[in-house]
């Protein structure tokens, strides 16, 4: 019943996507570092007359363009790999941690590309997105890989598997992007403090959007993530009711879903609280993200609960 050949193609596609993303990651990094150099070179050459557009600048653009092209290609192969896995198994491709990671990282890629479509400046953030993403995909491919298989009965006969887990994937992807922007915001804010009053500054951080912009972006992403997480929680509760007869039972996974929800709620409140706005609030979102990682790794693998049927 499992289409073994298609499943193998899927694995091949996902490994290929990882390889392509590595290329993209290198290109993004080159863009970030080279852009920095171009600025400082230009400053040296122009003798203080301000930077001028040079051939080098065009070269830096090419690195970025290359990175984006490669990422789009990688993204298509990645999504195809996930879809093939779904067809091969005849079910949604999020039945275990490996599939969840692969589908989730595909969602991150797609969202990153969509965000870049809206705001082209954010393409420079590519290296910071694909760094952690590659880490996740590589861990998933090496440590969590499971061959294509059927679902256990507890995951069958329920469209809530489709809804609950899919929305969970989307919100995890958003929280990941939100965490990346929050980290960049904090780093950039410190940099801005240090370089306040300088007419022209160079360095990797000079190319980032302003801390204020990053804060806004991170809020927008995290706010959507929070709404989807709330929905994940409610959809999970409805599914729990159909599966176990109760909508909430403080199973470890439920506990952590609740903790993450509360921490991100605190983040939203912190943004509206005197004395916490801006960078302090960003720390709350990072705490939330750490809880999310804990929920996905330790709670799935170490703590035994009702959600531990996925065989990882």
């Amino acid at each position, binding site marked *: 019943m499992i289409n073994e050949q298609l499943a193998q193609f899927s694995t091949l596609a996902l490994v290929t996507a990882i390889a392509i993303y590595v290329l993209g990651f290198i290109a993004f990094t080159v863009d970030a570092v080279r852009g920095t150099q171009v600025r400082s070179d230009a400053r040296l050459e122009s003798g203080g007359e301000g930077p001028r557009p040079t051939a080098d600048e065009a070269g830096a653009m090419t690195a970025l363009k290359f990175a984006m092209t490669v990422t789009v290609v990688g993204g298509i192969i990645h999504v195809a790999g996930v879809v093939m896995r779904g067809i091969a198994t005849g079910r949604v491709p999020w039945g275990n941690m490996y599939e969840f990671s692969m589908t989730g990282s595909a969602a991150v890629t797609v969202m990153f590309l969509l965000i870049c479509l809206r705001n082209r400046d954010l393409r420079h953030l590519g290296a910071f997105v694909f760094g952690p993403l590659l880490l996740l995909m590589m861990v998933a491919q090496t440590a969590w890989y499971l061959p294509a298989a059927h679902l256990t009965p507890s995951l069958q006969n329920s469209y809530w598997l489709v809804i609950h887990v899919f929305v969970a994937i989307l919100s995890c992807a958003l929280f990941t992007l939100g965490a990346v922007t929050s980290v960049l915001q904090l780093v950039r804010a410190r940099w801005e403090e240090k370089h306040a009053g300088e007419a022209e500054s160079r360095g990797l951080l000079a190319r980032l959007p302003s801390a204020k912009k990053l804060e806004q972006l991170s809020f927008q992403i995290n706010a959507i993530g929070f709404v989807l997480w709330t929905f994940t929680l409610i959809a999970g509760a409805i599914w729990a009711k159909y599966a176990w007869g109760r909508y909430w039972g403080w199973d470890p996974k439920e506990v952590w879903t609740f903790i993450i929800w509360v921490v991100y709620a*605190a983040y939203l409140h912190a943004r509206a*609280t005197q004395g916490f706005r801006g960078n302090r609030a960003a720390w709350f979102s990072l705490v939330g993200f750490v809880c999310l990682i804990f929920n996905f790794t330790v709670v799935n693998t170490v703590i035994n609960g009702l959600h531990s049927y996925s065989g990882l």
Partner: protein
Amino acid sequence: MSTAAPEPAAPDSAAPESAASGPKKRPTLPSLGLMGWLRFLWRQLTSMQTALILLMLLAIAAVPGSLYPQRSVNPGLTEQYLQEHGKTAEILDKLGMFDVFGSVWFSAIYLLLFVSLIGCVIPRLQVYLRQVVAKPPVTPRRLTRFTGYTDVILDPSALPADTSADALSADASPTSAADLRDRFAQRLRRSRYRIRTTEDERGFAVSSERGYLREAGNLLFHVALLGVLIGVAMGHLTSYRGQVTVVEGEGFANSLTRYDSFEAGPWFDETSLPPFRFTLDEFRAEFNTDTDNPREFGKPTKFEADVTASDPDQPEFTKTVRVNQPLNLGGSGIYLLGNGYAPVLTVTDPKGRVIADGPVITVPQGLHYTSQLVLKMPDARPKQMAVVGIFAPTMVIDDKGPHSEYAGLVNPEIALTVHTGDLGLDGGVPQNVFQIDVQKLDPVTKADGSPMLIRLKPGETTKLPDGTTIEFTDVKRYAAFDVKRDPWEGFTLAMALASIVGLVASLFIPRRRIFVRVAETSEGLRLEAAGLARSEDYRLQQDVQELVAEVTGRKEADE
């Protein structure tokens, strides 16, 4: 508890200053007095900082609930932990670590949080209700400091013709300042802004506001959370939950005596159990044999229970109950949660008296259903008797002892020992039917004194030295169901969904004002427009400029 307002969430409630009128004459104010202290505490509790701290405390307090076994979730595991960890576990138990979500400290945090929420929502609700009926404030005198400030001089004759319905005719008279203002007002009203027009020596102005739903959403979100809490609490008080095991061919009638375990809330009326009944006609389980992967082999792929059911409202009907597809009877849900094998044993004593007859429910362990079998026979004479052993659907006996290698019925067999003695059932202490301590019993032995191991396949019979016979006639499957009813479930769900609606409104509806002023000057019409963001609003500047461009017909209002 505001998630949104960047401005101070709400002005402090306009509490009457009566309590403060007394000490007014004394400027030193040495004490706040009781009322003063209460008010001070209330202010502290309902402040955003406190809410923030309580939220983080709630998150931290929930952590041990996932690290330690919880009595309410897994009582067996909790007992085991207590026994294994001795003194430390006792201290942890006193601290409530095994019942985190019912503990005093956890309850205190969330109750304080909800009090803080109420204290925040009520004044905001008052403010909001006042705002909803009020008109937008008048256009400020100076607009320069607002978002997207636009200041242009327009040639009145170059403006596009008014195409709206109330333009009397397409006459070519030049547009007046009032006309242009009205066009803006109309355009804004079409975009669901609430408007207020004024005229003064500075010109004709329109002030507009929209996004009232943002605050409504915020209030709805918080009130709905309160609703969720009420729904959960009421559900806890009025629900019941029970576990039953039903062997194929047998039935279940909903009454307290038939449950293996039963819990109900303090307000649950035990006489109100709905009188439904059902019979388990067949239970089907399938396991994966179509794989080369040893980790996948034998994993379950299907559990299905065919039942014939009836309740007072409907005639008998048949249904297949699956995991995730419960049966609904008389308002209660019946959930398939477990299954296993029940070998049918008949034990006859030497006098020909049947002392046990029927399916024995075994407890499966592991993927391949190596099942623990315990059969207590208090009616055996002269001594009470118990049978303890293993049932395996696919029996293998090797150096690991008897165990099953596959969950399907390929080579069903039981391996058991027989013990005699006082089973301790007469002491009145309730016992687990699936467990027995054989230390205090005497094993039935072979002639050489070693315990007698009996192995039986279906259809086989064995005779003990004393003449007792044990017959293994057949293997049946059983299904374990949870029966549950929570009358407040629907309410809680409705509240949860309402909270999502409120959340979306409170996060994504921008609350904003847009001001437009038109004045007649010697060079033409002077148009000023600007916006005021009252929440997260990234499009305001763009929207102000687009509004000006659209109404005046200018390509782009950029400078």
